[in-house]
């Protein structure tokens, strides 16, 4: 017994699939208004499903692509160990137990760990930065010019990366420029200018900024003066300010997602130069406490990159063994992926509901058609049609509705996402941001939705087809 005869879907060589499709097309054409409405229902269902899933996939792809291209996936960040407040007070000054200081000695050690591609330290200090009359506060980062070779810093719009370790140079991001009321030509300038009625911004080409000067103001804290100030000495000021001029050598794309976001890499200066700037002295209480021990953290963070993302976990474990506090975004990404899976599932369910409605539409159409064609079915039986062949005729119709609906739905969904994408990107440009591809159609989505639509139609066709096959020919032929 073959599967086909088991399902009673018999259609011997004489009734070819081609015959069935021709018959289906013909029957659908006979009631074209109703058929096209049903197909439209499937199109809307499929269109909704795929544009929803394409939106979810697009968001996920944008984020993971951004991470991949920035090299964040192969990066581990080491930060100073936080102070453990549960420890007894006297042990706080006993720095040996707290952690390894983030300094050059540690860097050398890290570079020797197998799988590590590079390791470099970043000096970070809060500061104020000014360009002409505009100023803003930030945390600058001092890095070695060598770092320019790494993936994370390949996004220069103009100029070069830092060229010297000791000179007062700066690589600045577009995010920082915006905070300094400068807009550069990578954005939609004309539109932005029109909206900028108060004339707040200065409009420049990124190249024009190269060679220009920024003023970096840092504060230094003097603990001894603090005592004087507390005892009423007017002359004693525990804070003193120093201004260092910085020559802009490069402009790079900002890493933030919105106009308000900021990042510690908005202003990069040479590491050697950074060590000459008198700083507030410490980034954390740990560092403050450690100051006395003669083993201060030189760096605020150490960035470690691995050549192969597979090395990430072993390297991270090695670093943890050394007593370091590490953070790897790639491992966070698993969480993010899981979150997106949930988002996609929810979007998919909405589309799925639309398809269920479309499926009910198919059932309705086929049942109507069977009612109208009762006599015809009776005739088919009288001239030798088997139940299986009659079922096949209705399955054929369901399949055609599904296939045409799926292809139409994919086109519809694609057009909708094109239109939606264009509108959203117009808004994004008006806000002065970079346009993005919001929707992504992976191949499995296209194939899957065609298969799904046909599957759904056939399931929707099950009951009507069985009903058609069960029609009593004597009854059917009686009413005329």
């Amino acid at each position, binding site marked *: 017994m073959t599967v086909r005869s088991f399902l009673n879907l018999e259609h*011997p*060589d*004489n*009734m*070819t699939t*081609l*015959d069935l499709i021709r018959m289906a097309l*013909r*029957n659908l054409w*006979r009631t074209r208004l109703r058929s096209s409405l049903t197909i439209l229902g499937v199109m809307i269902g499929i269109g909704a499903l795929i544009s929803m899933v394409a939106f979810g996939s697009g968001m996920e792809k944008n984020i993971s692509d951004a991470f991949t291209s920035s090299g964040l996936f192969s990066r581990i960040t080491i930060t100073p160990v936080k102070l453990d407040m549960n420890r007894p007070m006297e042990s706080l000054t006993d720095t040996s137990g707290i952690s390894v200081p983030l300094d050059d000695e540690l860097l050398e050690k890290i570079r020797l760990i197998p799988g590590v591609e590079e390791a470099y330290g970043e000096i970070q200090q809060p500061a104020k930065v000014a360009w002409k009359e505009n100023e803003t506060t930030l945390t600058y980062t001092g890095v070695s010019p060598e770092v320019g070779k790494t993936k994370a810093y390949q996004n220069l719009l103009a100029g070069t990366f830092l060229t010297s370790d000791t000179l007062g140079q700066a690589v600045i991001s577009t995010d920082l420029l915006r905070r300094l009321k400068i807009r550069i030509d990578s954005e939609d300038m004309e539109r932005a200018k029109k909206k900028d009625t108060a004339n707040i911004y200065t409009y420049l080409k990124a190249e024009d900024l190269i060679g220009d000067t920024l003023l970096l103001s840092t504060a230094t804290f003097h603990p001894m003066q603090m005592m004087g100030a507390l005892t009423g000495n007017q002359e004693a000021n525990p804070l003193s300010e120093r201004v260092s001029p910085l020559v802009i050598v490069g402009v790079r794309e900002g890493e933030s997602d919105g106009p308000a976001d900021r990042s510690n890499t908005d202003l990069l200066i040479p590491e050697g130069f950074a060590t000459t700037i008198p700083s507030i002295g410490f980034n954390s209480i740990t560092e403050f406490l450690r100051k006395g021990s003669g083993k201060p953290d030189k760096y605020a963070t150490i960035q470690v990159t691995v050549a192969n993302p597979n090395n990430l976990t072993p390297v991270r474990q090695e670093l943890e063994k050394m007593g370091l506090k590490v953070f790897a975004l790639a491992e966070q990404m698993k969480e993010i992926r899981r979150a997106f899976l949930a988002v996609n599932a929810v979007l998919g369910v909405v589309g799925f509901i639309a398809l269920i409605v479309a499926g009910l539409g198919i059932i309705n159409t086929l049942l109507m058609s069977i009612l109208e064609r009762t*006599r*015809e079915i*009776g*005739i*088919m*039986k*009288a*001239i*030798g*049609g*088997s*139940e299986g*062949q009659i079922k096949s005729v209705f399955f054929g119709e369901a399949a055609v509705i599904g296939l045409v609906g799926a292809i139409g739905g994919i086109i519809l969904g694609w057009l909708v996402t094109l239109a939606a994408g264009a509108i959203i990107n117009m808004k994004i440009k008006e806000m002065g941001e970079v346009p993005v591809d919001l929707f992504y159609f992976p191949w499995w989505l296209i194939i899957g939705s065609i298969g799904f639509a046909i599957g759904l139609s056939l399931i929707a066709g099950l009951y009507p087809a069985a009903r058609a096959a069960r029609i009593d*020919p*004597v009854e059917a*032929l009686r009413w*005329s």
Partner: protein
Amino acid sequence: MAFIEIDHIRKIYRKATVTVPAVNDISFVIEKGEFLAIVGKSGSGKSTLLNLLGGLDTPTSGEIRFEGENLFAEGKDGLVRHRRHRVGMVFQSFQLIPGQTAAENIELALAFGGVSRTERHTRALELLAQVGLAERANHYPTELSGGEAQRVAIARALANDPDILLADEPTGNLDTQNGDIVLSILQDLHRQGRTIIMITHDPDMAQVAQRTIRMQDGQLLEAL
């Protein structure tokens, strides 16, 4: 062993409280090549009996044997084979499929009968020529006169070359002239050796048959 043996056949319709014995214990035989007319008042069970002979309906009890083989022994599959190859049916109201041309109506029967795609159209045209309607091949049923429609229906009934033709008042909806044409076609088919079983209300039609049986209240009156 006769060609067709109708053996204590019974078809009883049950509706709520009433039972209608549409065919009530009929037995008789039909010989090969016979032209049999069935007559009787309206509601006497003629169509019910013919539908049983055509394998469109199943009896409440009894058997119909074709060359000794019980038609109802093999269930649905047996009935489908019977309708495809052994009998052709013609009805009072023609029963052509409205959305299909004369040729296509015949081609569908050929498809069910197992004729290959390439042969179907030629076969359909041959069959139409046989009933004198070759030039009507591409006409839709609504574009045909009653007489023409019934001739197409006869051509379709002959599609898979059955031995037996079952006709339920084939001239009932036709004027005398067209009725005569249809009747002469049936006579030709009879002459070619086919067994013809025809229900009719018209005594003149019954004259053409070799034998006439009369039904009343689901039972057989003595053969005339």
